């Protein structure tokens, strides 16, 4: 069962059991997106607030496996309060990490670093990415001036 340890690190289980910034019934922020992965039925809503170029509000809610929910939780901690450009940089770091590349900003990724092991489980990579891709999309949506977007497959946005 050694393999499983790489997938279900204690930190991941902790974020899963005690999610940070998870807010059932999101409302009142600047941009909201709904992402889902039809292959496993994961669904995630992400809502963000951007003030003066800084991501100063983020909440999410959804229905998903431990990896997708824990990843969203760890992500929220890592990105909140950062300038939007910096957040997009972290999104890209995380995405590359999920494709097997060594991330350069381990400190900034914080707890999200423990998802490195997930890269070894191809079918779970999409789970770990769900929150991050939704966040990137929410920022795009905000910048376009829309306030909502609905994406049913994060693959194409990856």
């Amino acid at each position, binding site marked *: 069962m050694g393999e*499983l340890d790489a*997938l279900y690190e204690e930190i991941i289980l902790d974020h899963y059991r005690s999610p940070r910034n998870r807010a059932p019934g999101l409302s009142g922020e600047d941009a909201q997106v709904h992402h889902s992965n039809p292959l*496993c*039925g994961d669904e995630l809503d992400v809502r963000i607030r951007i003030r003066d170029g800084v991501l100063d509000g983020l909440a999410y809610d959804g229905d*998903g*496996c*431990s990896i997708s929910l824990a990843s969203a939780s760890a992500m929220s901690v890592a990105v909140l309060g950062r300038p939007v450009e910096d957040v997009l940089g972290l999104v890209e770091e995380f995405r590359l990490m999920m494709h097997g590349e060594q991330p350069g900003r381990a400190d900034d990724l914080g707890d999200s670093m423990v998802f490195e092991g997930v890269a070894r489980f191809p079918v779970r990579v999409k789970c770990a990415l769900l929150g991050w891709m939704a966040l990137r999309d929410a920022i795009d949506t905000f910048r376009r001036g829309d306030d909502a977007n609905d994406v049913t497959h994060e693959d194409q946005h990856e």
Partner: protein
Amino acid sequence: MPIDVAAIRTEFPTLAREVRGERLVYLDSAATSQTPEAVLAAMERYYRTSRSNVHRGVYLLAEEATDAYEGARTALARLVGADPRGVVFTKNATEACNLIAYGYVRRTLGPGDALLCTVMEHHANMVPFVHAANDRGFEVRYVPVTEDGHLDLAEAARLVADGRVRFAAFTHVSNTLGTINDVPGLAALVRDANPDAVVHVDGTQAVPHLPVDVAALGVDSYALTGHKMFGPTGIGALVADPALLERMEPMLTGGEMIRDVTLTGATWNDVPHRFEAGTPMIAEAAGLTAAVAFLEELGPDAVRAHEVELGATFLAALADADGITVHGPTTMAERGAAISFSVDGVHPHDVGAMLDARGVCVRVGHHCCKPLMRELGINATVRASLHVYNDADDLEPLLDGLAAARAMFAVGRSA
């Protein structure tokens, strides 16, 4: 002869494998079955001794290849009680459903007509018809599923009452709920309302597990797939009444399926060749013949008896386990051996991963039944499905993994 699981297991090479240090416990036969040595040997024989193209060859190898290919038609027809002239080979069951959607439904149904489908269909037996309906302007009506996982035949009777249902498509056995549908009953209901209605059944999950006689079922066409019935990947079939095939247009056109071709048109070959364009799946057909022989040797009745017994053991154990909800019928008399369930407070993906770590292969997800999932109010299930190489030894690792998943994910968390 009852099924001798220990002896049977030796015929399936992959089952001897260890995964992550554990014995492989294969509980995903509803997705695809394992392949016995005899099937591999039949394909090798073609590739090693008769490798050539079928039909039209005037040399010995080509005659042997043609015999291997056409022999599969005879074998499959025999297995399901059909006329060999009604057996059209396709690459999978999905193509078989599309073939009748293109060849019959799209050419026949239009505005004012209706097609009967059910909420429990696999996408393969629903999307081709919905796609056709959207292009051609006919209506699709759905038989709902009752609380206990059956088709609601009373509602079905209401849906066909106006006589406008000209085509019905439904599954023999549900790949998600396991339900064995009353095919003759529903077929009769459809025909009572409209004697000319064509009844198409998705037999993908039935043929590998039950005695099937399409004549006795009283259906016009029946789809199946090789890779779930011990056969190779890359081959399936539409088994239809030759008279229905005569009324159908081909879907794929090209070589082999023509009688004559000019620059402005073509005339079609005889049934069933009309529907088999291009070089067919020759090695796959040879493998399928061996798969049919394998099933016949076991005996479809014995296969069913084994699954009824083993399925009951699994169902009872899952009913006893903490936090497990089984979907679909609860007694084996009403169902096949694909058992879907939810694990309270644990996402199916996490269940799957915990089981994988124990060498247990199950399927998690929507099982290509999104409308049914929506009906059940869930996103995904865990599905353990049994076949002749499974026995009660496979139960323990499953239960063990489920308990571990509950312990790891369901504790201290509100569902």
